[in-house]
C-alpha cells in the first residue's frame, strides 16, 4: 500500500540552515547536509530545501549545495526558492535534485511549469501555493505571502495541474507558524479539483495534527519545519504514533 509521506522542510540561507536546531550530535547544526542526513536516517520520506538567500550569488551556492546533498542523501529531495527559469531548474535537477518547487515565478509566468515538465517530466515539478482566506475565499499570495494575487486557490491549482505540475505543496498562511494544525478546509477544496498529490503545509504543532490531516483529508504528504528542527516532534515517534492510529505510513527497522 502506498504510504503517506512525512516531509521535513529546511530553510537555507547562504548555504546554511536558517532556523536554529537543537539536535544533539550534529557536527555542524547549521549544515543542511548534516541535518538532512539526520532526517533521512530517522525515516523522513522526502526532504524539501527552501532557499531564502536574497543575493545574486545564490544560484551558484545553491547549485553547489544541491550537488553535495545529492551525494550524501539516499531519499528524494526537492529544492525551491527563487527558481525563475528553465535554465535554473535544469541546473538544479542535473546536479541531483529530484524535484524543483516553483512559487511566485509560476504565478508570474505559468509557462515555466510547462517548460520544466516538458523537459524533465511532471514528477520533477512541484508547485508551491501560499494561500490565505480573505474576503470569504481562499486566494493565492506570492512573494513569501506578502502580496495578494487575483487568483482563487482552487482555480490556480487546476491550472498548474493542466500545465504539467506533478504535485502541489499547499501552505495555509492563516495557519503557518501557529502550531494550531493544518488548514483542512482549503486542502479538501484543492484535493477535490485536482488529480495530482497534494502536500499539506503550515500549522503542524503536534502529532495529532498529522493524524487529523491524514484522517480527514486525502493529502498524500504533510510537511513541517520548526516542530522537527526544534525537536518538539521526533520523526520515528511521529511515524510510530501514526502507524498505531492506522495511518498508512512507512517505518523502517
Amino acid at each position, binding site marked *: *500500500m502506498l504510504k503517506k509521506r512525512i516531509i521535513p522542510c529546511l530553510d537555507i540561507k547562504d548555504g546554511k540552515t536558517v532556523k536554529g536546531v537543537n539536535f544533539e550530535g550534529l557536527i555542524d547544526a547549521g549544515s543542511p547536509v548534516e541535518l538532512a542526513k539526520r532526517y533521512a536516517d530517522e525515516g523522513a520520506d522526502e526532504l524539501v530545501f527552501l532557499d531564502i538567500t536574497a543575493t545574486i550569488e545564490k544560484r551558484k551556492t545553491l547549485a553547489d549545495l544541491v550537488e553535495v546533498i*545529492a*551525494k550524501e542523501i539516499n531519499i528524494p529531495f526537492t529544492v525551491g526558492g527563487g527558481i525563475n527559469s528553465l535554465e535554473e531548474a535544469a541546473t538544479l535537477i*542535473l546536479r*541531483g535534485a529530484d524535484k524543483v518547487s516553483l512559487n511566485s515565478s509560476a504565478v508570474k509566468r505559468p509557462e515555466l511549469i510547462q517548460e520544466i515538465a516538458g523537459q524533465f517530466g511532471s514528477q520533477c515539478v512541484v508547485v508551491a501555493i501560499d494561500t490565505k482566506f480573505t474576503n470569504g475565499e481562499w486566494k493565492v499570495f506570492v512573494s513569501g505571502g506578502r502580496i495578494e494575487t487575483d487568483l482563487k486557490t482552487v482555480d490556480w491549482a487546476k491550472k498548474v495541474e493542466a500545465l504539467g505540475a506533478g*504535485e502541489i505543496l499547499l501552505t495555509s498562511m492563516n495557519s503557518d507558524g501557529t502550531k494550531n494544525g493544518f488548514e483542512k478546509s482549503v486542502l479538501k477544496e484543492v484535493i477535490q479539483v485536482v*488529480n495530482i498529490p497534494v502536500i499539506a503545509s503550515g500549522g503542524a504543532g503536534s502529532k495529532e495534527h498529522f493524524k487529523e490531516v491524514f484522517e480527514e483529508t486525502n493529502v*498524500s504528504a504533510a510537511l513541517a519545519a520548526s516542530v522537527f528542527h526544534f525537536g518538539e516532534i521526533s520523526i520515528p515517534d511521529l511515524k510510530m504514533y501514526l502507524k498505531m492510529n492506522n495511518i498508512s505510513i512507512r517505518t523502517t527497522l
Partner: protein
Amino acid sequence: MIAIVKYNAGNVTSVKNAIERLGFECIVTDNSEELQQADKVIFPGVGEASSAMAYLKEKELDEVIKNLKQPFLGICLGMQLMCDYSEEGNIDCLGIFKTKVKKFPPLDLVPQMGWNSIIQNGKENENEDVYFVHSYYAEVCEETIATCNYVLNFSAALQKDNFYGVQFHPEKSGKIGEEILYKFLILNF
C-alpha cells in the same frame, strides 16, 4: 568497473551517487565495448519510452544490451524498456522480459509517487518500503520476482538469467534501497 548506460532518458546523477556512496567506482558510457567489458551494467531511466527506444536503436545499443552476459540492472524506465512492449508511445522494446508495459487506469492519482511495500512469495515485506515514481507499470509475468500493489498488482522486480529490473528507485529508497543495490553490485557469476 560498474558501467551506467548513458542515453537520452533520465538523470544518471542519483544512480552514480548511490553507487559511489557504496564505495564502488562507476563510469557513465554509451560505448559498446566499455559496456561489454564492465563487471556490472546499470540501465537507469526517467523519461519517455518511445524516444528512449529510438535513441537506443540509433546508437545500436539495443543489440548490445540484449547480448550482455554480466549482471544487468534496469531501473524504472530502464526496466520497462527491457519488456516486450510499452504503451507509452506504442513501442516495441528490448523483449528481455515477456510482458507488456501499460498505463495505470485513472482510478487513483497517476503517477504513483512515494513509498510502497513489495510482495515476495506472497508475503508483504514490512518495514522495507521502496520509492516509486511511475505512470506506467509492467504486468505480472513469469519473470516477475516481486510485485507491488497500486490500483492493481504489477511487477516491482523482474529477473531472467543475468537480467534484473526494478520498477522502484533503489538509489532513492534509503538504507533498504542501498542494500538492494549492494546485493546487485556484489553478484558473482
